[in-house]
């Protein structure tokens, strides 16, 4: 029964995540940027823009220039999250890929780093009056949700182990549309439930910053307005 509920939950969550995100990305791609507005100094070639974008998404360059505390918490959280995600690939592949194997020990501790960094971000929301002023309930809840995922996940590693062999079999089954047995451990159920919730709200929340940054005109435009004429389709109609 539990297996069926969670299977449905994950199928629905995956569907909403994929369709929702695809729709949003399509929308951002479809809407034209009528003017050239890169924040300068900006790269003057497409390759330069790729490098700028890489620096933003890998090192959080602008944030680093801006505020070292937010950068430290934010960067540690995101990079830890990637390690944790990589570590989790093992539950979805029959044979564990070699590079997932390598990330395994790092991924474990990255989980703790992730929780600490999220705690730092949450503390800033309460303690810094400027950040408190701009925070809505959803901003706190988003951090609590991520912390909940981290804590419930880490608890299975450090506090009360679940039957991880069974979990892997269940997850592998889901990828083959087979619903198997899911252990009824509270921390596992909390973990999976919160992850599904995160997947569901991803396309309708500020988590859209992940795909959104790639569509940010101030960061993704080449600084060549004089050399190459830029014209939005709706603006071209004005010329007729």
């Amino acid at each position: 029964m539990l297996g069926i509920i969670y299977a449905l939950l994950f199928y629905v969550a995956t569907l909403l995540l994929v369709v929702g995100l695809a729709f949003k990305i399509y929308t951002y791609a479809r809407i034209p940027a009528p003017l050239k507005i890169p924040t300068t100094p900006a790269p003057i070639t497409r390759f330069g823009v790729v490098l700028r974008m890489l620096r933003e998404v890998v090192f959080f360059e602008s944030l680093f220039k801006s505020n070292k505390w937010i950068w430290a918490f934010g960067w540690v959280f995101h990079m830890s999250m990637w390690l944790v995600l990589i570590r989790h690939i093992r539950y979805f592949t029959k044979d564990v890929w070699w590079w997932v194997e390598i990330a395994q020990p790092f991924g474990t501790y990255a989980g703790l780093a992730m929780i600490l960094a999220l705690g730092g971000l949450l503390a800033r929301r309460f303690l810094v009056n400027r950040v408190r002023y701009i925070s809505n309930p959803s901003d706190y809840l988003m951090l609590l949700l991520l912390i909940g995922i981290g804590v419930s996940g880490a608890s299975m590693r450090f506090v009360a182990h679940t039957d991880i062999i069974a979990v892997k079999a269940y997850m592998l089954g889901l990828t083959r549309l087979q619903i198997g047995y899911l252990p009824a451990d509270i921390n596992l159920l909390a973990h999976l439930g919160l992850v599904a919730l995160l997947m569901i709200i991803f396309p309708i929340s500020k988590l859209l910053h992940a795909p959104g940054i790639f569509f940010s005109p101030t960061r993704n435009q080449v600084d060549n307005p004089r050399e190459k004429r830029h014209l939005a389709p709706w603006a071209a109609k004005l010329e007729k």
Partner: protein
Amino acid sequence: MADGDTDIPKMSHPLELPEFKCGAMEGLEPYIASPDHQTALGFPGELVPDWKEKTIEKMGELAEKNRAFKVYLDICVKCGSCTDKCHYYLGTGDPKNMPVARQDLLRSVYRRYFTFAGKYFPWLVGARDLTEEILHEWYSYYHQCSECRRCSVFCPYGIDTAEITMAARDILAHVGIGMKYSNEIIGKVHQIGNNLGLPAKALGATLEDLEEDIEDETGVSVRIPLDVKGADILLITPSADFFAEPHIDGLLGYAKVFHEAGVSWTVSSYASEAANFGMFIGNYEQMRKISLRIRKAAQDLGVKRIVFGECGHAWRVAYSFLNTLAGPFDFLDQNYPVPQHILDFTWNEIEKGTLKFDKSKNDHYRMTYHDSCNVARATRIGDYPGSQFEIPRNVIRAVCNNYFDMPRETTHESTLCCGGGGGLLTDDLMDLRLKGSSPRMTALQQVTEEHGVTHMAASCAICKTQFSKVMPKFGYEMDSIVSVHQLVSNALILKGQDGYDDDNQDEDENTNNTDLGE
């Protein structure tokens, strides 16, 4: 608001964080455009009866037409990175002047009507129903933003509050709440050709007077041609260069440089304005209409090149938007940038060695340079990234002996706005302008203390006007702000002017001696 009651913050350093003063700038509104000024631009004369539907409709339209608007409203994570970056926040302490808080004034309404979370869980995401009070809150706080983009430099996603401000102003104008200062000026440009409403005849007379001034000063006849067909270069410069101080001295500098470079050039009475306030009010069509005057002038006069005078937002429109709005400029000489910045032109001449300077003429100045926001964060001046910072400094150093930069966190792409940009250069916003200028003024005071800096140069008409107004409040003379080309003009020695041949004679003598020796 009178100047007298402004409480200018005492800052120990330019980026000092203020105490929160909630509501400090609440209700500050520049004059609303009269029905005449509104209808002249095709906007409704006054608040339309169905303002609520029209506001939401316009918001939806912009979200379909402008990717930046849509993406930026969606993706902000409220990290707080931008909260201490706005000079108006630093100067006023009003939390609604923090960039993200300013965006949220509109984002909260957008969420209510355009997002799932805002429609069904408004309390969760801070979504608000649109009210008439909110329109006025927008009008107030979106006219406390100079569209300077300092926040966008520091945002991890590059969210540009200027884009939201422009959109908000555009929406407001479309429901009947336009801004008097900007809309009146735009009307004048459409009708007469420049922000001042200076007709061709008066412009011609002014330019003749200026020619006389140069001749009186130098003994050399330097022309400032108007409407000369077949000239090579069309100079488009802010109309403030024709009448305001220190702008005029910059114009004299351009004229002298063109003269020495031996190029033929002209000013146009039809397009006698570089400024384009269509950008300030966030309206593409208005901005385009103004830009098309420049295209028409260039075609009618049959010029080969377009050069822009010193102006910040004008250079943004020229550099970044002109090709889009009024291009393609395939009828111009493609060997030169279209358009070119006057500082690029002058620096090229300096590098070629065509200009002769006596730097000691500027020895009574100890200079610093204020990077104008639009030039710094939205353009290049030369052909490489960062040339917008280097070329003005190169030119100043070529004509001045004493130059010192202000603290790095207040220059280059991190430059602080003068406090009067983005369509806020109006007396009814003087209180805001003074407070908003205080971070920049504090940075200036620092280099005055450390290096004895006496004067600041800028290459923007709005910066120049703003600083000449606010500097006296910070212990400087109003003429402590100078044009970059004013410094060029001071130091430039024209052919035929006393002192021009001094060095050349030496060289000639040397040459002669060598000849004799042989």
